[in-house]
């Protein structure tokens, strides 16, 4: 099944598409500037550090530490009501430079006892609509 999210990004936000394509292949990829070598996230059309405009998409290990989180119990958007309560985390990736990603905590039916700094690991969750999300769990 193909990801509608990816197809939509290819048209509306091409600079994000390689990341989403990586998710469909269960790979975490981020852009690395071809000029200055800095990783950047979220992907932008120009390098945040040097302004260069080409990048090498690089696979990274899906590991990091918990930077912050919120567990949502009430939400206005109807598509998320069936999964409440759910937790959204910001993870600081294990890389030589500070890079963070936002993602849902993988749901296990147990509300985890989270602490900032907890070691986290990435996995991939395929939704019923075919989209694939990079989600996180304590490791």
């Amino acid at each position, binding site marked *: 099944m193909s990801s509608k999210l990816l197809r939509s990004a290819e048209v509306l936000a091409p600079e994000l598409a390689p990341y989403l394509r990586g998710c469909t292949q269960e790979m975490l990829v981020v852009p690395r500037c071809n000029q200055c070598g800095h990783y950047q996230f979220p992907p932008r059309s120009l390098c945040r550090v040097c302004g260069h405009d080409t990048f090498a998409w690089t696979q990274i290990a899906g590991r990091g530490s918990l930077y912050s989180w919120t567990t949502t119990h009430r939400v206005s958007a109807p598509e998320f009501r069936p999964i409440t309560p759910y937790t959204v985390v910001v993870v600081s990736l294990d890389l030589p430079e500070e890079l963070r990603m936002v993602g849902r905590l993988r749901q296990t039916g147990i509300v985890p006892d989270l602490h900032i700094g907890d070691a986290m690991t990435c996995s991939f969750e395929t939704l019923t609509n075919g*989209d694939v999300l990079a989600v996180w769990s304590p490791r």
Partner: protein
Amino acid sequence: MTMTRPETSVLGVGTTQFSRASGRSVRSLAAAAARAALDDAGLKVVDVDAVVPVGGAIFCDDLVTTLGINETVVDALPPPGGNSGVASLTIANALLRSGQAEVALIVFARNGCSETRIATRVTSLPGQQFRTFLERPHGWISPAQWYSMIARRHMAEYGTTKSAMAEVALTMRAHAQLNPAAMMFGRPLSAEQYAAAPMVTEPYQLFDCCLETDGAVAVVLSTRIRSRAGDGARDVGLLAVRSSRPESPDDLTNRKDWFDVGLTTAAALAFNDAGVGPQDVDTAMIYDCFTFEVLHQLEEAGFCPRGESDRFVHSGAIRLGGSLPVNTHGGLLSEGHLLGLSHIVEAVRQMRHEAGARQVSSARIAAVTGWGDWGDGSLALLAKSGTAA
């Protein structure tokens, strides 16, 4: 203390009723608030030569025919978001001080409860590609969720407590009991009720979140001063206003320092422009979309050091009678959500000494902050007539 002479003054303010269901169109609300503000200023519609519509639900053209505004009027739109109330002052001030206009009308109107729920506004914010493709799929979609993430981080780094957030909510509600125009007037809130309220998104419970409101607010600024006509006591000087952004304004996740926001730089600039410091401010209207945002902004505006807002509010500082009464009208949390323009109205009433039971005695300088969209921020400093050196 030395101060520069204010060149722009707030001459008039006007509001409609704040309600859950106005039963009126946004255009009708805007026109009513604009008329009230012009009456308050002692000016006529034909005097208006600049219009700054705020909030995205109302435009200058909606008012030209209804109010009879001159077709040649200059109009300018601040960007959307909660910072736009105070940011509208920067635009009006620039038009006035450059000589392009003499009388500027700022107007906000929205049926924010009955018509367009405030949460739907997020689809008009900058950085939509990040919202749509990186955040929304995970269910990270609302301001309460974005800001709770910052609150959690602050709690971990500085030991900030839920009890400090409660103090903000209870203070705003107590102040609203002195404001008959507040939506929560006559509806006091106890610590027990606060603690028992449903969880929205941790650490925010129901009463950590602002109201949704139908209503309109208008503010009239001018470089004319009424004191020449013997009625200057109600003019309120705009000592300074500055607006700024955090280092990555379209993305929170990869902002290097989550606490270094637009207000951090805007406040330093505004205090410098005005030649006063945080210690000279008698009352502050802080953009209170959620309780933690008040704590965060007290720190970044310089009213207390970073990390010490918990102790500051627990000292009683932000209550009437404290060292810095905050949101004496009840704020977005208990008066109503008018995108912060109502904070300017309350600051003006305090500087005119027309705030009735909630008047801060002998107040001469008021600060107003704006906050929105992951950290855009602003600070305005208003002064009682005759305060300028």
